[in-house]
């Protein structure tokens, strides 16, 4: 039986998508209106009733055009058990919906992968040596996500990348490289789905071992902070919920992953122009953000000076593959220790930027910023309370230090010793946060601003 291509259905569906896409959590273009949606490729994975079509569309938003992938499901005989927000509309007499929540349909993806099948332009394959159990039902994870991840049973997690970029996805590439050198701090990659975009084979999905025993780092850290805030008179080290031991083991895990990435993919010394360019990018961002956010203005001269200082670093700086978007929400505490997730890199950066070699201190800076966020998140929206603020600060200090100590134990050098670069990266991240909070969560603006003040005064 040759599967029908369902061209008419897809064409009709496309007319509904400009209104529907912005209602989806994972849609990255919520900042401006969708002007047009064009189907670029589609593949029928299940034909008949129910129907499952894999669809890639190009989304026009003013001057920007970006590809996204969808799983379109449709049933005649039975109403699917998915939320109403998944419903796209009635096309050619069929109710169509986003199918990632329909466990009957998503089971097919795992099946195809286990068999190593090619359907049209889509190639489903397992990683070398991986044997998959099939017949598992999946449900999407409920956490806030820019992609859509499906958990099969308690065994696997399949991440379907939503916004696509041509080529081998960096997340998959680094996971493979780390697995090859036997890294224990990532979830094993087990399979992938590859499509074609702009004529290039393109990763659209990645299957990994799911860790049912895991809790994410953000939840772990904020559990500790919660404990602290309830006993404002106690020092963090005296608290039952002290996190320093975990923070230190996390630091060691991050340092191990960095070493493994170097081992797998090599390093390059940073040249003077690398540093110059980094400074230029940081200063440009500073100017852009300061223009939008008046509260940042007072810090601009000092920040600029801190960034400029990077140009005069004379000690060698090593460039390597890094995580690129490391924070507490990207790490998992499992029974066998800390794992790092999601090596795609900073979501706001272009693909080219993401795959550049960088200093490992970028990741360290990202995690240090995250400790600040975790410490202060309970203060957001509360009236100023100097005692609680002090508590939050000392929690963050204790755990940032513990993280760096754990990192240093593995790396042999303490990231805090490279103060000029680390400070610049931390502040650059904070400036980015200022712009993000300004646009999205004005209540939280105080968090990066307070950090900037702290880092600037600590440094002087």
């Amino acid at each position, binding site marked *: 039986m040759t599967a029908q291509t369902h061209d008419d259905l897809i064409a009709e569906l496309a007319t509904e998508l400009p209104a529907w896409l912005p209602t989806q959590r994972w849609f990255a273009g919520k900042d401006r209106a969708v002007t047009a949606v064009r189907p670029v490729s589609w593949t029928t994975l299940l034909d008949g009733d129910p129907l499952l079509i894999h669809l890639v569309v190009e989304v026009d938003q003013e001057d920007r055009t970006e590809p996204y992938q969808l799983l379109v499901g449709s049933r005649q005989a039975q109403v699917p*058990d998915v939320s109403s927000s998944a419903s796209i509309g009635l096309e050619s007499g069929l109710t169509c919906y986003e199918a990632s929540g329909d*466990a009957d349909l998503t089971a097919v993806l795992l099946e195809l992968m286990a068999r190593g099948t090619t359907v049209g332009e889509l190639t489903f394959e397992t990683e070398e040596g991986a044997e998959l159990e099939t017949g598992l*039902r999946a*449900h999407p994870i*409920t956490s806030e996500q820019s992609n859509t991840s499906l958990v099969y*049973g*308690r065994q696997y997690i399949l991440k379907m990348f939503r916004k696509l970029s041509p080529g081998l996805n960096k997340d998959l590439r680094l996971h493979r490289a780390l697995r090859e050198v036997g890294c224990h701090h990532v979830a094993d990659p087990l399979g992938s789905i590859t499509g074609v975009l702009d004529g290039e084979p393109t990763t659209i999905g990645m299957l990994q071992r799911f*860790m*049912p*025993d*895991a*809790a*994410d780092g953000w*939840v*772990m850290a904020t*559990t*500790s902070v*919660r*404990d602290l805030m*309830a006993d404002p008179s106690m020092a963090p*080290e*005296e608290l*039952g*919920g*002290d996190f*320093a*031991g975990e923070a230190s*083991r996390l630091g060691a895990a991050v340092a191990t992953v960095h070493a493994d990435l170097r081992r797998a993919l090599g390093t390059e010394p940073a040249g003077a122009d690398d540093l110059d360019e980094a400074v230029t990018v940081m200063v440009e961002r500073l100017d852009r953000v300061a223009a939008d956010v008046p509260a940042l203005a007072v810090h601009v001269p000092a920040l600029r000076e801190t960034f400029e200082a990077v140009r005069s670093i004379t000690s060698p700086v090593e460039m390597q593959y890094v995580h690129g978007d490391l924070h507490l929400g990207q790490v998992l*505490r499992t*029974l066998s220790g800390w794992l790092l997730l999601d090596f795609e890199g900073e979501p706001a950066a272009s693909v080219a930027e993401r795959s550049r070699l960088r200093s490992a201190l970028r990741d360290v800076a990202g995690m240090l910023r995250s400790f600040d966020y975790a410490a202060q998140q309970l203060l957001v929206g509360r009236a100023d309370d100097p005692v609680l603020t002090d508590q939050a600060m000392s929690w963050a200090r204790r755990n940032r230090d513990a993280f760096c100590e754990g990192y240093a134990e593995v790396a042999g050098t303490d990231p805090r010793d490279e103060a000029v670069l680390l400070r610049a990266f931390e502040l650059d991240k904070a400036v980015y946060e200022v712009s993000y909070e300004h646009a999205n969560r004005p209540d939280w603006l105080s968090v990066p601003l307070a950090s900037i003040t702290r880092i600037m005064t600590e440094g002087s």
Partner: protein
Amino acid sequence: MTDDQTTAPAPDGALAGLDDTPHTGEGIEADGTLVEPHSEDFGHAEQAPAQPDWFKRAVFYEVLVRAFADSNGDGTGDLRGLAGKLDYLQWLGVDCLWLPPFYASPLRDGGYDISDFRAVLPEFGTVDDFVYLLEEAHKRNIRVITDLVLNHTSDAHPWFQQSRNDPEGPYGDYYVWSDDHSAYADARVIFVDTESSNWTYDPVRGQFFWHRFFSHQPDLNFENEAVQEAMIDTLRFWLDLGIDGFRLDAVPYLFEEEGTNGENLPRTHEYLRKVREVVDREYPGRILLAEANQWPADVVEYFGNADVGGDECHMAFHFPLMPRIFMAVRRESRFPISEILQQTPQIPSGTQWGIFLRNHDELTLEMVTDDERDYMYAEYAKDPRMKANIGIRRRLAPLLENDRNQLELFTAMLLSLPGSPVLYYGDEIGMGDNIWLGDRDAVRTPMQWSPDRNAGFSRADPGRVYLPPIMDPTYGYAAINVEAQQDNAASLLNWTRRMIAVRKQHSAFAEGEFVDLGGSNPSVLSYLRRWERPDGELDLVLCVNNLSRFPQPVELELGTYEGFIPLELTGDVRFPRIGELPYLLTLPGHGFYWFQLSRLGDEGERRSKV
């Protein structure tokens, strides 16, 4: 006999207070053999009703004879006093008593320094009193086990006296003697605070003797077949009287061997198999419980060969679990518990762990010194409050600041984690400790029965009671005692009793497979206990524990049990059916739930009785 021996002191000379009772060394045969009491000299207790594998589902209760009840008004608890309280223990739901040593002893090591394996410490009564206790306990379907130290004796034991005085006599080779102190240099000194070497010079014999513990506790020489047999005969003596088993103290150290650390040696295991054979052949249904304070992976060796369901000890204590439970609640994180259980190997089918929250010993981290386990040590030792509790003896209630919610949470975990729970006397009413009494005695104060004089423990003049009962306003016997708590339906005692009863209705708690459910909330420890009943039906229990003092939500992945209905076990409250999506529960601070999961729909629930 040489002149030397005729002038030597009587072999039982070092035994105090045994003149009127049968005891070892009261006579001596022409060939130098000591006269020892025989089990035929005493009555024998009827056995408790036979129940295969009873220890796998038993609730154990550690009780110090000295501390429980004084029958003769001399101020010290005794065997007859304990026998008089069996109704209470039966009411509570206790299945087996564990008595620390009650043998004749100079009491330089809490009775673990045994000077006669065949006599009872006179303050506690006689061998006949023990048989009476056994008889009364068995009538109530309560079993009794006691500590037996195989590794060494007190230096007051007539065997040792004979050994040091008559090197050529029948006991000359009962201990490990040497002309110098250079042998076995790789064996560590365990009590580093009091002992500088494992060898001590004996001026009487003019040789050094080997001791892994105190220098007043010489190690028996297990190389000597006669010693191996003598110790098995010691076991037979008590087994003949009707005892239900032994906790074998300090088992890892029986043999020594040059070039090794003298722990867990193959020959030690070989001997334990020999002991087990005797028990299985001559006394089926009686048990051996190993005290080996080591990492679970090493302790598992003491269960023996898994292919035959275990051929050494029936039970062993799981030591690292206890400090991890404290750590987990302190950190509000399930990881300390989940990790240690994940690292705990499968045990043979015929064996069971013993688990406990508190016992007469201190909170110890002895077993976590290894490099890759320094996690626990680092966490514990860095935390001033936890550190303050290492190496000292505290009771459960003061350790938990008398917080009823935490007491319940800890007890609920004790009763639902894998293993047979061991309660420590008095913890069921939330007794306190008395740190002014010194470390050893702080947790050995008299059981608090009533608000009457001496807490109802003894009619002696208060000045004669072996230790003063606790009298402070929070934990004193005026406030905390069995009588008051029995009358109060909401008391900790009645709560504990109900929980024990619930546990007994579900074999899953005792024998079920343990499945950690993990989950995204690190403060909630949830697990399934899954047991296939002989009739093929599943007994499934779901336990959810909030380790945090704050209320917590949890989403449980129960996909495999879609369509099952959770029935809350303490109140028989039916919860919503499990669907395909994660199952959402909310728990109050330090709250917990026990559910039975059953497929039964409207026909009503059925408790799985064994």
